[in-house]
């Protein structure tokens, strides 16, 4: 972290900044980070293909979540930005009552309990296509919804849940939506209560998804102008460029003082750095490859602030790929591959230490109460010879710098394992996000190290959208072509302050793109959700971390900070940055 700390202290003494006198109006231009993807989806229910941090940021500015976490670096909900009062659990933690603040949609109607129910019904209709979906969890763990009044509702749950888990990991998914404007099945149709039946909800969802696909109509479509967040969309280009202006009717929190918030996409880090060095951005980032030249940016009037997120980084393996899937299902194969990933060396050579090693499912930074001491130890340190030994011991003919093949198929301990046919080659195609030099370097180094054990990795690149779109869960067959992807680091950022892996590593989880399935991990995740006491919760967390680190549902790679932000000295209120990655420009001010 040496480079970054030095940069920070240099930044505080730079000339060219504001004099601290706040102004109203003005424009803030925010650079969308390369690894966050570009904005391409407005409707606040995301499928995995559009579940990009940029989209979530963009949606949150317009539709406020029920509970806003991470403001000022804290992992608890921020009362000034949240739409509801803290939830109240009752009936032995089998019911939760939510009370909304008195607030209004931009068209003037009040925000009601029906708007919360509307979201839940749509999420239910979206089923497994919704990125927040986990079998048996929200919204399936809601038995019934009782509307108490216009601003209060009670969710009756299927069983008792740990309140902290339920608030942080389940209620945090809810984004109330304008039922009185969106509950219809066609553009010309009347608004009704269609969402109350499952077939009606499916029709409403299909209509809204269809509207959201028309990216050219984002500003002209009246649906998207009904917002309750501090901003509404004024200008949008399908390449991801978005201009937002204040929602004058916003009454959940403090109204924005900034006149215009622009989210600007870039095709490469270098392009962003160029714009930054000319002073064209208010809030950008210094690409990792330029960290050694950070003085250039501080001289242009920026302060540099690293932005670690509650996140993890990994390579997704497709366990259902017909060619390589059977081999990937063997733990020893994944262990061999993990032993060929030299995380400390990648950090030292490529990241300038702007990251931390990641050996398991819970990040060690930003500091959080969940990571155990074991999370800092690598169970599979870099060792090509160990990788080769593992493969040889399981019936593979290892050809360093050639192609390793299975010569002893079978299910015994010294054979290749179930489903692995004789002659199976350890060849893996790996697609990763283009435009990030450190990632490209990591992938090259990984390919080189894998070749030492005869594992052939073919690299290809794509945009974030392409890579995420490629990696969708499939059940085998000829269409299940993709083998491995790295869709950027951090690879997964928790939107809620509870770093559980039910979406990532549980059987059928919404973001379990590689279709990993292991009963031990499923049981560990369930134990965290239902642990009755604090001690039991701690024990469940420890077990989960140890098991996932050992069983390798993915291959771990170093976790980078989200970005080293370059924030104009004229912009105040933007730090500390949100460890969950959201931005709240309504709380920022520009100074003269």
């Amino acid at each position: 972290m040496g480079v970054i700390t030095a940069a920070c202290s240099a930044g505080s003494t730079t000339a060219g900044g504001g004099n601290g006198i706040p102004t109203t109006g003005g424009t803030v231009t925010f650079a969308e980070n390369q690894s966050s993807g570009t904005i391409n989806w407005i409707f606040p229910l995301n499928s995995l293909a559009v579940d990009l941090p940029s989209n979530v940021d963009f949606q949150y500015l317009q539709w406020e979540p029920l509970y806003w976490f991470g403001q000022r670096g804290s992992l608890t909900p921020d009362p000034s930005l949240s739409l509801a009062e803290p939830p109240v659990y009752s009936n032995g933690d089998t019911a939760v009552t939510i009370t909304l603040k008195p607030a209004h949609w931009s068209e003037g109607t009040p925000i009601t309990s029906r708007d919360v129910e509307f979201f839940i019904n749509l999420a239910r209709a979206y089923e497994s296509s919704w990125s927040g979906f986990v079998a048996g969890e929200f919204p399936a763990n809601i038995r019934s919804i009782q509307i108490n009044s216009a601003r209060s509702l009670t969710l009756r749950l299927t069983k008792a849940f740990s309140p902290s888990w339920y608030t942080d990991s389940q209620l945090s998914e809810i984004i109330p939506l304008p039922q009185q404007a969106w509950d219809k099945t066609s553009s010309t149709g009347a608004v009704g209560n269609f969402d109350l039946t499952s077939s009606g909800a499916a029709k409403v969802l299909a209509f809204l998804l269809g509207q959201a696909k028309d990216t050219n109509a984002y500003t002209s479509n009246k649906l998207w102008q009904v917002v309750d967040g501090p901003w509404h969309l004024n200008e949008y280009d399908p390449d991801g460029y978005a201009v937002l202006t204040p929602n004058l009717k916003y009454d959940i929190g403090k109204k924005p003082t900034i006149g215009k918030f622009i989210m600007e996409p870039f095709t490469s880090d270098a392009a962003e750095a160029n714009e930054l060095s000319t002073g064209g951005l208010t809030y950008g980032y210094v690409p990792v490859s330029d960290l050694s030249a950070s003085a250039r940016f501080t001289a242009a009037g920026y302060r540099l602030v690293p932005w670690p997120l509650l996140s993890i980084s990994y390579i997704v393996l497709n366990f259902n790929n017909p060619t390589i899937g059977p081999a990937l299902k063997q733990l020893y194969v994944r262990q061999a591959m993990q032993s060929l990933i030299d995380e400390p060396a990648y950090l030292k050579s490529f990241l300038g230490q702007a990251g931390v090693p990641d050996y398991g499912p819970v990040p060690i930074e930003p500091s959080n109460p969940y990571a155990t001491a074991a999370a800092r130890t690598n169970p599979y340190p870099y060792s090509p010879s160990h990788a080769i030994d593992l493969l040889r011991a399981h019936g593979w003919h290892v050809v360093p710098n050639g192609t390793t093949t299975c010569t002893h198929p079978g299910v015994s301990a010294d054979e290749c394992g179930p489903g692995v046919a004789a002659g199976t080659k350890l060849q893996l195609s790996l697609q990763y996000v283009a435009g990030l030099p450190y990632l490209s370097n990591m992938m090259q180094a990984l390919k080189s190290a894998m070749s030492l054990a005869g594992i052939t990795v073919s690299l290809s690149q794509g945009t974030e959208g392409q890579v995420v779109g490629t990696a969708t869960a499939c059940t085998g067959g000829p269409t299940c072509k993709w083998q491995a992807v790295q869709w950027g680091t951090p690879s997964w950022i928790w939107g809620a302050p509870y770093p559980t892996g039910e979406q990532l590593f549980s059987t059928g989880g919404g973001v379990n793109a590689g279709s990993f399935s292991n009963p031990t991990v499923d049981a560990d995740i369930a134990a965290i959700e239902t642990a009755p006491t604090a001690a039991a919760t701690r024990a469940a967390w420890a077990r989960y971390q140890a098991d996932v680190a050992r069983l390798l549902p993915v291959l771990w790679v170093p976790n980078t900070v989200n970005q080293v932000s370059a924030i104009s000295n004229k912009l105040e209120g933007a730090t500390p940055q949100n460890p969950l990655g959201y931005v709240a420009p309504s709380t920022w001010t520009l100074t003269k």
Partner: protein
Amino acid sequence: MTTLLPSAYAPPDEDVIPQKGRNLRAALHAFLRNRLGVLGTLLVVGMALFCFVGPLVYHTDQVHTHLNQVHLSPSAAHPLGTDDVGYDELGRLMVGGQSSLEVGVAAALIATAFGALWGAIAGFASRWVDSVMMRVVDALLSVPPILLLLFLATIHQPSVPLLILVVSIVSWLIPSRLVRGEVLVLKERDFVRAARLFGVKRRRIILRHLIPNAIGTLVVNASFQVADAILLLASLSYLGLGLPPPAADWGGMLSNGINYLYSGYWWLVYPPGLAIVLTVVGFNFIGDALREALEVRLRER
């Protein structure tokens, strides 16, 4: 007319060959008198030797990364330093040049050959066929080449043969127009008319009479095509759609080096940039010299 024709139609077997030899010698003489042409040849030959013979003399590992040797500045061990994954930059320049030259030369040859054939057929065929064929060319010319390249390069995994194909696809249009223009003039010449009167087949007329007479234009164009293809490949790689690692090409190396511009790693930027410029300039000089050498009017000037 019938009495005139036999004398106007030069029988191919007796006179033409020595005439051709004389022409070639004169053209070579004119080429060698052109200093820039000679310089261009030296540059291109020098680059080819550097890329293809260099690695036999200067051995480097261009397959495995060396994480303890990243971003080393030039030294005795690494005359041009190392890049961001520890590859020796000089060795990489040689390997990268191989693919750049291979793609450049092969794409130029394919594009020129196909374009020549297309243009010759269009020029010689009926007006109707000519119209259709040239509208196809016009339509393809109206598509921005980079768009087509990006499309093809994203749906397929880039490889040297694919890049050759992709670059050829957008490069054959200009030679086809040039050759068609030549053929439209040539087909009214007496020797072609005579050949048609004698019942020589169309295919033979195109291949034996029309294309050989347009060869000057073609050779000149081909040399420019090589330069263009190298640049096109460089821009593709610059956009991240070049050869996947550990393969390299100059454009990709340059694009990579640009990332570290602010960090002052000049050895990652100038060498590949210079290699591209020198090779492209070399081929352009050769093209200019060839044009002067083959164009009789310019030669006598």
